[in-house]
C-alpha cells in the first residue's frame, strides 16, 4: 500500500529500482538496472547478468550459454563502446577469459577513476532489424515517445516519429508506419516483414512507463532487435536518465 492506493507489482518493482539509484545519488541507471526496469514493465530484454569477477563470469556464462556478449558495468562509463568495453559473439570459455580482462583493462585505461562493478554477461541475439524506441519528458507536452530505425537512420537522417504518451496501439502503429524507412520493416526485396506487433507493444509500454514515472526524464532503447513477424522484438540495451530530484 502506498498513500492508501495499492501499487501494481510492476510499479512497485520500478519504484524500487529508481529509489535505489536515487539513494546512491546517481541520475543515470546502469544498463542492467535499465533492463530490470524494462523487464518489470513487461518489455522483453535479452538475458543480462552482472559478473563481479572472472569466476562469476565463467559460472554465469555456462547458464546463459555461448555465444554471448559482455559489456563493462560502471556507473562512470556511460558510452561503453567508446571505452572499448563491449565484446560481441564470445563463443567459448577461453574467449571469455581473454575478453573479460581485455574489457576491464580497456575501461581502466579509458577512465582510471571509474568504479568498475564488473561486466554484464548477456545473451547473444541473432541478427535482426534494429530500431530505436525512446521516451522524453517534454517541458510543454509532458511524456512523449519516439520511434526510429537504428543507426544512420536516426543519427544522420533524423527519420523519427513522436507521440504523446500514453498512446493507443493504433497511434503506435502509425508511428512505425510514418517513418520514411518503414519499408525496411514492412519487408523489401523479398525480406519478410519484421514483427511490427511486437514493436507496437514495446512503444505502448514505453509510453505507459514515461506517463506513470515522470521522474524518468529520458529513456532510450537502442537498439531494439526486431525479429521476423511472429518472432518478437527484444531490447538489447537500455539507457534511463532520471530528472533532478524534486
Amino acid at each position, binding site marked *: 500500500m502506498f498513500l492508501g492506493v495499492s501499487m501494481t507489482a510492476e510499479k512497485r518493482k520500478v519504484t524500487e529500482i529508481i529509489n535505489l539509484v536515487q539513494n546512491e545519488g546517481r541520475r543515470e541507471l546502469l544498463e542492467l538496472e535499465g533492463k530490470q526496469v524494462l523487464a518489470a514493465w513487461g518489455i522483453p530484454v535479452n538475458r543480462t547478468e552482472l559478473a563481479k569477477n572472472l569466476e562469476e563470469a565463467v559460472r554465469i556464462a555456462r547458464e546463459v550459454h555461448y555465444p554471448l556478449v559482455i559489456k563493462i558495468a560502471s556507473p562512470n562509463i556511460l558510452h561503453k563502446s567508446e571505452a572499448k568495453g563491449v565484446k560481441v559473439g564470445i563463443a567459448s570459455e577461453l574467449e571469455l577469459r581473454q575478453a573479460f580482462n581485455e574489457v576491464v583493462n580497456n575501461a581502466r585505461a579509458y577512465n582510471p577513476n571509474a568504479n568498475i562493478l564488473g561486466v554484464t554477461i548477456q545473451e547473444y541475439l541473432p541478427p535482426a532489424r534494429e530500431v530505436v524506441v525512446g521516451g*522524453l519528458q*517534454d517541458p*510543454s*507536452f*509532458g511524456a*512523449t515517445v519516439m520511434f526510429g530505425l537504428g543507426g544512420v537512420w536516426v543519427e544522420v537522417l533524423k527519420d*523519427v*516519429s*513522436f*507521440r*504523446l504518451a500514453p*498512446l493507443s496501439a*493504433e*497511434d503506435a502503429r502509425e*508511428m512505425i508506419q510514418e517513418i520514411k524507412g518503414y519499408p525496411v520493416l514492412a519487408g523489401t526485396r523479398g525480406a519478410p516483414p519484421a514483427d511490427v506487433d511486437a514493436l507496437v507493444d514495446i512503444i505502448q509500454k514505453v509510453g505507459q512507463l514515461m506517463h506513470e514515472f515522470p521522474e524518468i526524464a529520458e529513456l532510450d532503447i537502442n537498439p531494439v532487435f526486431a525479429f521476423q513477424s511472429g518472432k518478437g522484438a527484444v531490447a538489447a540495451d537500455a539507457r534511463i536518465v532520471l530528472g533532478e530530484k524534486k
Partner: protein
Amino acid sequence: MSPELKALFEPKSVVVLGASELMGEDSLYAMFFRFIVGNFSKFKGKVHIVDLSGKLEGSEKKPNRAPRDRDLAVVVLPKELLEKNLPKLLTRKVRALILVSGDLEKKQEEGLSNLVKRKKLLLLGPNAAMGVINTANGLMATAAREPIIRRGHLAIITQDSSIAAMMLDRVHFHNAGISKFACTGEGLGVDETDLLEYLVRDKETNAICICINSLKNGRRFVEVIRETVKEKPVMVLKASPRLEGVFEAALRQAGALLTENIGELIPIAEGLIKQPPMRGNRIAIATNFPGQAILAARYLSEAGLEIATPSNETAKKITKKYPSVRIKGFVDLGATAKASHYKFVIEQLLSDEGVAGVMVINAIRSSLLESEDLCEIAEVAKKSNDKPVIDVVTCDEDYAIAREILADTKLPAYDRIENGARALKMHNLRWKMLEKLKQK
C-alpha cells in the same frame, strides 16, 4: 479552469482608454487609440471613450469618471502612462481587460498579474493590439486600420500581432466570413487554450484557425483540441520553425489539421465549413480549362490524392447528353460550357462510386462562363453532403471575381490547383479523424 470569456466577446458596455495625441515613440499608441475608437462605430453596445489628451469628440478626460459598471476595458497607453491610469480606471468595476500596451518591464508585469488576480479580471495581453473581434455584435476592439470583416463561421486565434494583422488581411483578401477573432499578445492572462474552450461552445463558430508561435502548456492545449475536433475542425498554423517533432506529432495525434503555409490557412478552413469531409482520395475533375487541368495529376499526387477517371457508365451518361465533352482522365467540358453542362456533369461525377470528391477547374474570362453560372455550380455543391466539391480558378483576375461571387455560397474557391489539392487532402484527413473517433 478556463475563465468565462463572455465579457471579452459579448460585452454590453465598453470603455476605451488612451491618449489621442502623443509624441515620438509613444505616438504609436495615439495611432492605435484612434484606430480602435474608429473601429467601435459599428458596435451594438455602449461605448465610453476616455482620451487623456481630451481631444476626441464626446470623450471623457479622466479615467476614474467613467460610468459605473463596464464589461470590457480596452487600454491603449504607452507603459509610462499605464501605471498611473490603469488603477484609476479599475476603481470602477471592469470584467475584462484588453491591454494593447506592450514592452512592459518585469516589475510592471508582476504588478499587472497581481492587479488581475485581486480584481478577478479577465486579461487579454499585454501587447494585444489586434485585440478581439465579434462579428455578431459588431465588436471590433482591434487596432487594425479600418479592417473589413464579413460575418461568417470561421474563428481565428493568434498570439503574435503581426501574424494577427496578416490574418485580418487574408480574411479580407479571400472574402472569408468570420465569427470571432482574438490575439493573445504576450498571453499573460487569457491564452489560446482558454479561447479554444470558449469557441468550441460558440454557436456562431463552425471551424477554428489557431496560429501558434510558442506553447507554454502543450499538454492542456492538445487535450482541449482533442475535445474540440469532435465538434468542429481545428486548423493549426505552425508560425514558428522551432515548433517541430513533438509539437507536430502531438497536434496530429489530437486531431488538428496542421499547416505551415499561412496563405492556405483561411481558404482551407473556410472550405472545411462549406463542404463535407472526404471519404477517399480519388478526385474527379470537371473543367473548361484543360491546359490547367492537365497539371492536376501532379498536384493531387503530391497531396497523396489521385485523379478519378469516371466509370464507363458515368462517361456514357455524360457524352450521351453532351457529345462535345471530352473525357481524358479529367472531364473537359470545353470553353463554351455553361452552368447546365457543369451541373449535369458534376451530378454524374458525384453519383459515381469511384469518386470521393470533385475539383472544378475554371477559366472565367476566356470562356462563356458568367457569374450566374458560378452560382448555379455552387447550388450543386450545396446539395452534396458526403463528397466535397471545390472550385479552382487559376487566373488571378478570375479568382478575384470568383471569391466575390462565391463568398456567400457553399462552394469554396481556390486560386491554385495545388491549394485545391491540399484543401481536399484536409477534407480527407478530417474524415479519417472522425472515423477514428467513431471507432473509439
